[in-house]
């Protein structure tokens, strides 16, 4: 079992994907949280002249959409492109051919560890991003809008349920699957030369990003029926 799933390799990939992307993700997600609060506050005051619901509403947006999508897009640019570049380079230096000659399936050797790692990483990153994002949201609500801890949590409770958190993790897992598979596909179909690596990297980032947005829509639509 260890051998089939190449656990050590997967762990290395998790380190590459999750650990290296973590600072960037937390950084961006914190800013995004602040902006979400600012914007929600703006709209609430405009619509109902009352911003007591702002934290809850913002938290809902964060948990369901913002944190997971921003995280996934960031990971795509960083780790997705990196994976595609790495696999492309393996292809053009004929390492893939060498694997086949040794009777090893490229998909199990190259794709599977990265697939597992991406899914696991994205679940972890999403969980961390959600928490950090909510924390930043609280911080900004407290300092800027004058919400106390109690008010903040109260507002949250009206708007979000635990299943929001779980569903966002599920989204993260799906996005992880997408990123690794798209990077693998474009990496393996890379054309020769410096040109080829650039192209496959670009294409994998673009394709992953687009699929993430579309699948996010599809999942959001599906999940909406659970409410």
């Amino acid at each position, binding site marked *: 079992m260890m051998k089939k799933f190449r656990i050590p390799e997967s762990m290395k990939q998790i380190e590459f994907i999750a650990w290296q992307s973590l600072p*960037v993700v937390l*950084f*961006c997600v914190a*800013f*995004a949280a*602040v*902006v*979400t609060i*600012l*914007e929600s*506050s*703006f*709209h609430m005051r*405009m*619509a109902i002249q009352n911003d007591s619901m702002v934290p809850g*509403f913002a938290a*809902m*947006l964060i948990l*369901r*959409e913002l944190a997971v*999508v*921003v995280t996934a*897009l*960031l990971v*795509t*640019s*960083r780790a997705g*492109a*990196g994976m*595609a*570049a*790495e696999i*492309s*380079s393996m292809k*053009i230096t004929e390492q893939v051919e060498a694997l086949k000659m040794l009777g090893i399936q490229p998909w199990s050797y190259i794709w599977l560890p990265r697939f597992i790692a991406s899914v696991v990483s994205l679940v972890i990153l999403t969980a961390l991003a959600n928490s950090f994002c909510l924390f930043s949201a609280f911080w900004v609500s407290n300092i800027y809008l004058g919400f106390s801890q109690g008010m903040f949590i109260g507002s949250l409770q009206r*708007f979000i349920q635990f299943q929001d958190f779980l569903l966002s993790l599920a989204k993260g897992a799906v996005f992880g699957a997408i990123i690794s598979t798209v990077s693998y596909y474009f990496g393996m179909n890379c054309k020769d*030369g*410096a*040109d*080829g*690596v*650039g*192209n496959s*990297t*670009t294409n994998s*980032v*673009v394709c992953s*990003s*687009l699929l993430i*947005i*579309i699948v*996010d*829509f599809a999942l*959001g*639509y599906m999940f*909406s029926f659970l*409410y």
Partner: protein
Amino acid sequence: MSFLTSLGQGVIFLTTILGYFKRLDFSVNEVFEQIWKVTKESALMTSTAGFFVGAIMTIQFTLQLNEFGALGYLGGLATSGTVREIGPLLIAFMLSGKIGAYTSAELGTMRVTEQIDALKCLGADPIRELVVPRFLAIILSSFFLLGFGLVMSILGGVFMARIFGGISPEEYFRYVPQFVHLGSIVLSFLKCLLFAIILATNCSFFGFYASGGALGVGRAVVKTAVITMVGIVIADWITSQIADVILRTVVQS
């Protein structure tokens, strides 16, 4: 290379390019050719992304507003939120992937295959011939593409409102003028412009100074995408923050 060193070099690079622009030292033809290339490559992706982003926002807003029985406000709120915030952010993310990666890969490949050195040796100024046209083209194109993406996101919103919330386009747009005022549109423009500048600077810079063969090109693409996204997020926050401060000052006075 340390972060501050890169940042400093990036700023110098940007100032150099703007110098050429001020002196009108570039080929207008070349700029148009680049605009066409960039738009052709990115239009489909931007409109698709925009459409789905609008749809996503509408779903979420519908679910919440339904609970409060305020579905009438859906069009106004969704449009405002998308135009001010989610639209520019996510679409700029997509563009940084497409245009950013494409340009940095192109310039990076030219650098590692010694074409940029060859240009210099044959009497051409690579910044004038390669970088400035692309830079200007990216700013103009992404500005246009972001706007176009926002329009698509509104369409996506209308479409989803009909299917998901049973709201007709009429009802959807009824409160839009109330929610979306001039300040929001100005904010949106500013964000789009700022994001475009960040994108153009980053992909030109990292592509032009790529090194290390084919893998170096890949690295340049990754750096471009990540740093552009981070830059966009920070710029997003700064503009929203300033807008909020202005609004509060105006309201209080």
